[in-house]
Every structure is written in structure tokens, then in C-alpha cells.
């Protein structure tokens, strides 16, 4: 298949497990902690066409972030493969990196540096040309309704919403073909949330393929062309928001519990168990 016809994302039997260490210790060997495997992704087959926004909905621990991290070359899968525009995320990760950018729930900035210094750093490591950079940055910020004077303030002085917008502006600046957004509106006040959602809508006009992980069902329905419903590392349902109807009811129907209950359950599990290195 020629490069231009490759889907934006393609995975086959993509699997990921993490080793977890529990609070208890082995009865016969008190120096050893009990360990178990957490399956973050069950074998996953997925194809995302170019230029569309795909929402991934699921409670904490459903595998959304692991999927994003595998696609972002930050986590290596155990089995199966994933390709971004035809490039394998493991064997050809350097090519993959040229196509992608990611906006995460954490700001991922040097907080003492100004927005400008952070953006210049991002531009440089993404190989964006220097010429006219300030102008381009200002125009991206203006597009997303961020005042120009905000550029020279340290990031820690910016509100959470502003930081998130700068993060999206940063990703736009590097002109990704695939944008991985991991809960970009989590923790924001309603106004900032609306503004960030507006930015995501804006990106659709640029034909950027977007994978949007979210807890917010209304957000997924409003912004996405296609929605994947995930739980415990499996895709429970896949379709357009129209096809899937009321997502909350569907989640309950397929998983036997409500989304909020699933979140509470996942948080309790996280407190009991911790992902550990081998």
C-alpha cells in the first residue's frame, strides 16, 4: 500500500501488561513482595482513518492512556504491532515521532520557563525553522484566544486552562498529522473546558487526525466522528456517536456497571496496588 493510502493508525493484536506489586509479601519469603500482572491492553485490532477525530471513552484503568503511550512510542507493546501512517511504533519509532504530537492531562512544561521559552524548546526539538517563529507562535495563540503578553510569563503563573491551551498550541506549532489528546479537558473549569473543546473542533478544520481520550461522554459525542468505548483494556463498542446512542447506558449495558462506579473502583485498585518495575 502506498504511503498516502496508509491509515493514520493501525494495530494488530496489540497487547500490553504491567507488573504490579501488591501490599502483601510471600508467606514463605517475607523479603519478597507479591506481584501480579495488570493487563492494560488485551489484543487490540484497530484502524483509524486519516483526518477524523476518534474518541476513546472509558474509566480510569481502561487502557486509554496505555494505548496513547504505545502510539506515542513511550511504551513498548508486549505483543502485536501498531503502525502510524505505515510506520511501526517499535521498529521505526523515529519516523513515527515526525508524524505525532501529544497533549496530556499533565502540563508537561518547564514551569519556571516562560511559555515562549517552552514553545521555542519544543520547536527546536521538533526541527521547526526559526524564521518567523515568534510571529507563528503569536498567531497560534491568537487563534486560540490567548493574549500575547502571556507568552513571556513563567508557565507556573498561568491558570490550568491557559497551560492546557499553550500545550495544544505547542502541538499545533509542530504540525502533527496525528494528534494524541489524553484527557485534555480533565480538571478544567467549565469555561476553560469549553474553550479547549473549541480548539479541538478547530483542529478538525486542519484535517489533523485526532485521537481524543476522555471521560466526558458529552464531549465525545460533540467532538468525535467515531467513538471507542473501552474497559479493562478491551474495546467494548466502536461506532459513530449516533450509532452508539447514549454512551453511558451502553457502557452500563456492556460492562455491567456505571462509568462513575468503574472510576471509583479503579481508584481504589490504584491505592492498593502500584505498578512496579521488574
Amino acid at each position, binding site marked *: 500500500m502506498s504511503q498516502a493510502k496508509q491509515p493514520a493508525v493501525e494495530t494488530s493484536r496489540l497487547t500490553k501488561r*504491567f*507488573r504490579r506489586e501488591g501490599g502483601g509479601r510471600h508467606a514463605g519469603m517475607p523479603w519478597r513482595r507479591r506481584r501480579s500482572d495488570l493487563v492494560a491492553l488485551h489484543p487490540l485490532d484497530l484502524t483509524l482513518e486519516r483526518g477524523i477525530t476518534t474518541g476513546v471513552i472509558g474509566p480510569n484503568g481502561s487502557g486509554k492512556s*496505555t494505548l496513547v*503511550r504505545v502510539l*506515542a*512510542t*513511550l*511504551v*513498548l507493546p508486549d505483543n502485536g504491532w501498531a503502525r502510524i501512517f505505515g510506520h511501526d511504533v517499535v521498529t521505526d519509532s*523515529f519516523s513515527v*515521532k*515526525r508524524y*505525532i*504530537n*501529544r497533549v*496530556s492531562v*499533565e*502540563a*508537561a*512544561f*518547564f*514551569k*519556571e*520557563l516562560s511559555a515562549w*521559552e517552552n514553545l*521555542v*524548546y*519544543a*520547536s*527546536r*526539538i*521538533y*526541527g*521547526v*525553522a*526559526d524564521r518567523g517563529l515568534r510571529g507563528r507562535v503569536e498567531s497560534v495563540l491568537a487563534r486560540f484566544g490567548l493574549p500575547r503578553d502571556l507568552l513571556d510569563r*513563567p508557565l507556573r503563573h498561568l491558570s490550568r486552562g491557559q497551560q492546557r491551551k499553550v500545550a495544544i498550541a505547542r502541538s499545533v506549532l509542530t504540525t502533527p498529522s496525528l494528534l494524541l489528546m489524553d484527557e485534555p479537558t480533565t480538571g478544567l473549569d467549565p469555561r476553560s473546558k469549553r474553550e479547549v473543546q473549541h480548539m479541538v473542533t478547530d483542529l478538525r478544520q486542519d484535517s489533523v487526525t485526532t485521537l481524543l481520550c476522555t471521560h466526558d461522554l458529552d464531549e465525545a459525542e460533540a467532538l468525535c466522528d467515531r467513538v471507542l468505548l473501552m474497559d479493562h483494556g478491551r474495546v467494548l463498542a466502536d461506532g459513530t456517536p449516533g450509532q452508539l446512542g447514549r454512551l453511558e447506558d451502553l457502557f452500563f449495558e456492556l460492562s455491567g456497571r456505571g462509568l462513575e462506579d468503574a472510576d471509583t473502583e479503579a481508584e481504589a485498585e490504584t491505592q492498593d496496588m502500584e*505498578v512496579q*518495575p*521488574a
Partner: protein
Amino acid sequence: MMMLTLRREAHGFVGFIERQKNLIKRYWLWEVVWLIYSLVSVLSIGYLAAGLGSLGTGGFDLRQAQLYLLVGALLWAYLSIVFIEITFSVTWERWEGTIEYTFMAPVRRLTHLLGICTFALLYGLARTLVVLLIAMPLFHLDLSHANLVTAITVMAVSTFPLVGLGILASVLPLLSPERGEQMTVAVQGVLLLASGVYYPVSVLPGPVQALAHVSPLTYTLEGMRAALIGGRGLAAVASDLLPLLLMSLVLVPLGLAVFGWAERRAKRLGLLKRSG
């Protein structure tokens, strides 16, 4: 295509240097504190040497002893800055939560590490120069007999194994987000003990002497002392330059290979995400 790739990498290289410079600028107060700490350490050693005479420990050239100790203190100030700047680059990114962003960028790890190391070397030289300029008049340091060509050569050749060692140590926070940082400090402590910063390695017990022989800092210090105090030429320090060159050939590729392995391991185990 090749030119485009090189240009991108050059952008990235400058980006890492600029980022480190900006961070130093923003945390300037901490840098002043560390500068004062370096200065005080060097001055303490200088005054310790000056005070040896009043302790009744005669029978040796006090002036030489002071010079010996001061050269050690100054070099340690430089080497420790470089080492810390390189090894803490990963730790720092963990604190800030930017490590995933940096590792996701389309820039070669070699470029990334070269950028960090280049900044560390330049910054280390600048800060040590400030300390030297203050210490020289205070202790009437006379370096008129020094062989500067030899000193600069030893310093330049030492850079490579030091960079390799720094990269190797910077792997520790990748291996263990919780304990990696402390382990890098421990490595630094071992280097201080074993490399003959303030004494000839011959006074060390056997096992520590064995460590001294594999520490590039030992040869750097011996070569620099020979050049600055003894005024020796290049031929006289060949026995220090040769091990340094050999160590460069081993430590730099080894550092890069181990860093690559540690990055893959962190990605396999999902360790990049954790802030430690």
C-alpha cells in the same frame, strides 16, 4: 534529505543547550548558592593547606602542598559541575514532568545527550573560571610555570570519558525513578574518594586504588597537576593521556548504549510516566 536531517538535529542540539541555559537563568538564585558553595569549598581547602604550617607539620613544601590541594579542589569543582549537570538532566525532567515530551520528540538521543553535555562543559568551565579568578589573588596562586598547552590538552581529552561517565550515571534515574537520584550522588562520592582529588592515590588501600586506576578523573588530576604545578610537556603526561583516550573509546559508546538500553527498559516497564 541528508541536509534536512542534519539541520533538524542541529536545531535540536541548540534547543537542548538553550533550554539548559534558560533553566539556569530562571533558577539563578540556586546557581548563586552553588557557586558560593563551590567557592567556599575551594577556599576551605586553600586555607587548610595554609594552616598546615601552624599545626607543626613541617618538613615539606607548604607552598607546593597548597598548590596541589587547590588544583585538586578547582578541578573537582569543575568535574562535579559537569557530572551533576549531565546526570541530573533526566532527574530534572522527571521533576518537571517533561521527560515523556522530550523522549517523544523526533530528535536523536545522541543529539539530545550531546546538547546536554556541551552545555554542562561550557557551564562548568564558566563557573570554575569565576572561582579561579577569586581564588588566585587570595592565595597568590602562581601559575607562571604552568604548561598551558599540556593543561588544555589534558582537559580536552578528559572531556570525553567524563561525558561517557556522566551519561552512564544519568541512566540511574531511568532505571529507578525512586532511588536513581541518590545513586548518582553515591557515584559522585566514590569518584571523589578514589580519584585522588586531595591526595595521591598511593595512600589509598588496595581495593580503592584499583578503583582509582579505572577512574578517568585520576588521570585527569595527575595530568593537570603535572601541567599546572610541574610545568610538564605533553610527552611527560602521555601516560595520563593514553588511558584517557582509551577510556573515551570505551565510556562514550558504552554510555550511549546503556542509555539506549535503559530507555527501552523504561518504555517496556512503563517507567517514563512516573514522577518518582
